[in-house]
């Protein structure tokens, strides 16, 4: 069940990235899809044990720590990409006064003249 839910989150993100014309919404959709991939790793990792992978008294099986370590990196990378994307969107917005990608594209190439 959880797998399907995560898959649905991922597809929702991809759909938003393709279908929504608003650039901020596109960036947020990218973030959602990214979170879904992170959830894939974390959920898979959580199935391998039942306690945190910290050196303890040995009660319970600790989970596989590798997916968590990997996802820390992936989250950091994702934050960088989103920050840069929002920076670019902001620049475009200050120049064109709109967040609609179709309108920005038209204005950059001056196709409707």
């Amino acid at each position: 069940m959880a797998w399907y839910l995560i898959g649905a989150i991922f597809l929702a993100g991809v759909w938003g990235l393709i279908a929504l014309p608003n650039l901020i919404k596109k960036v947020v959709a990218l973030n959602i899809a990214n979170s879904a991939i992170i959830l894939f790793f974390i959920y898979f990792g959580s199935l391998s044990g039942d306690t945190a992978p910290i050196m303890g008294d040995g009660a319970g099986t600790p989970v596989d720590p590798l997916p968590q370590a990997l996802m820390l990196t992936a989250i950091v990378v994702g934050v960088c990409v989103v920050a840069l994307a929002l920076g670019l969107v902001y620049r475009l917005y200050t120049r064109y006064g709109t967040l609609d990608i179709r309108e920005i594209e038209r204005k950059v190439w001056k196709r409707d003249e």
Partner: protein
Amino acid sequence: MSSVVLLVVLPFAGAMIALVGKLVRAEPVLSVISTVPLLGMGALLVMQFPAVLDGAAFTYSLGGWPEPAGIALTLDGFGWLSSVLVVLISTMVVFASFSSRRYRSTYFFVLMLLVAGMQVVVLTEDIFTMFVGFEIVAISAYVLIAFDRTDEGLLASLKYLLLSSMGILFFLFGVFLLYRDFGTLSLRIMAEDSATTPMAEMTSVHLAVAALCVGIGVRTAFMPFHTWLPEAHAYAPHPVSALLSGVLIKISFFAMLRIIAVFRATYLSDLLLWIGAATAFLAVVWALAQRDAKRLLAYHSISQMGYVLAAFGATSALSLTAAFSHAMHHALFKSLLFLVAGAAVQMSGARDLYLIRPIGRRAPLLAFGFVVGALSIAGVPPFNGFASKQLITSALDHHPAYALLWITAVGTTASFIKVSRIVLPRRPAGPALQITKLMTGLRSAHRVPVSEPASAGVMIHIPVVVLGLLCLATGVFARPVSLLLASLLSPTGLGAFTTTSAAGDPAIPATFLSGAKLLGALPVLLLGVLLYAGTTTVPGTRLARRIERIMPELRTILLFFVFGLALFAAAAYR
């Protein structure tokens, strides 16, 4: 410290030096110093050359952690070749960047990060580290494309960001599937495991390989993932265009090649072959229709990567050598062409082919370099494009897709006759002038940006001369060069993908410049001239302008991506 890890750490150190330059306000000096690590990397690579040629592979485990959990870096023949490509072209680009005052600490910081990211991608054995390397490369590339803060640059950068982030999500999904099935992230261990397990038992691995190929495919820019490239490469700052077209797309292609070889995904070969041929052909049609000089060159990058992909997909004894040699040669001549075209654009302040003032008289050396590059890409003997196209011809061996590549060669010749007007002084009168007037009067499909004319600088001559000489040298000594490539690549396990095993001699042709082969190049050249004449007629011009007008919107680009994903998944589960 091992030399392998130094190849990754040195460029990071360079980036840090540039950053310090920004902090202590010593930008010019520290910008120059920040690029010195490139020399160190070059020296290391030269030192390792004899051992690598003997088939040695240096491995370094980061932090001393052994492999199932730790991260290993490996320098073998493949890693050596890719690193040489990165270091050589980056050094050339750094020289070209010195010729302009605009590029200071921030620029060199991002540039060195890009180099470091590429080194991570080519040297790592760990697929998650490869993802991180790809993201370092991507983020620096986004920044560099938008570096001049022009409207087109910002939009191109954002488009590239959205598309390639979507691609990298699928890559990460592929990494997840592999980790789930193999319980490791090391490509070496995965290769050993998948060699013992029959392919039929690994159905989800097919999906993983398809997802990885799609994720990397966006960076390699073959059809249907190519749509971001013309804008990103055309509106980036001029030296950056040379670096992106010269190295970046090759590095991602090499990564894809490695992944396909690790999982012995031979079922992808037909798809790659046909995608490559179609990419080469369609991109050259678009290239022929362009009038923005750098956009035209960018379309040629897509087209030539199509050649590389088709050669690799042929899976014959020669295909790996042919693909590598064309990728290497393309890196040399395309960086050369982009640097000179960039200089020409800068000197005349216009990007439109029909408005650029020819640089032939003002900068004869640059013009000469451009002619060398153009002859190379058009496949004229004895330059290197001719040699690697010979290899591709033998690798494809009368495959039906070769016809498309042959037509592409004609189109390439024609479009480089068209570009030659940026170097050759224009004839003052005659029909050529009328056509020029006609073309200048016509409204372009999209706004072609203009800027203030400026000097191209002195430093740009160094990379142009070096790259021009290399184009000639690798063409004249084609046989020793390709034998060297073959002997570097054969022990690395990449040959596992080709049908004849690595042990078989990749029958390199005994001579590249025989009379019959020279005659074989002749019809392509003649037809190319004819095709160019065809595009200068009125119907030809109209058709070209109609093609130029087709510019996919962002949404279409993303839908193309989904289409490509379906294509790869279908090939995997056929």
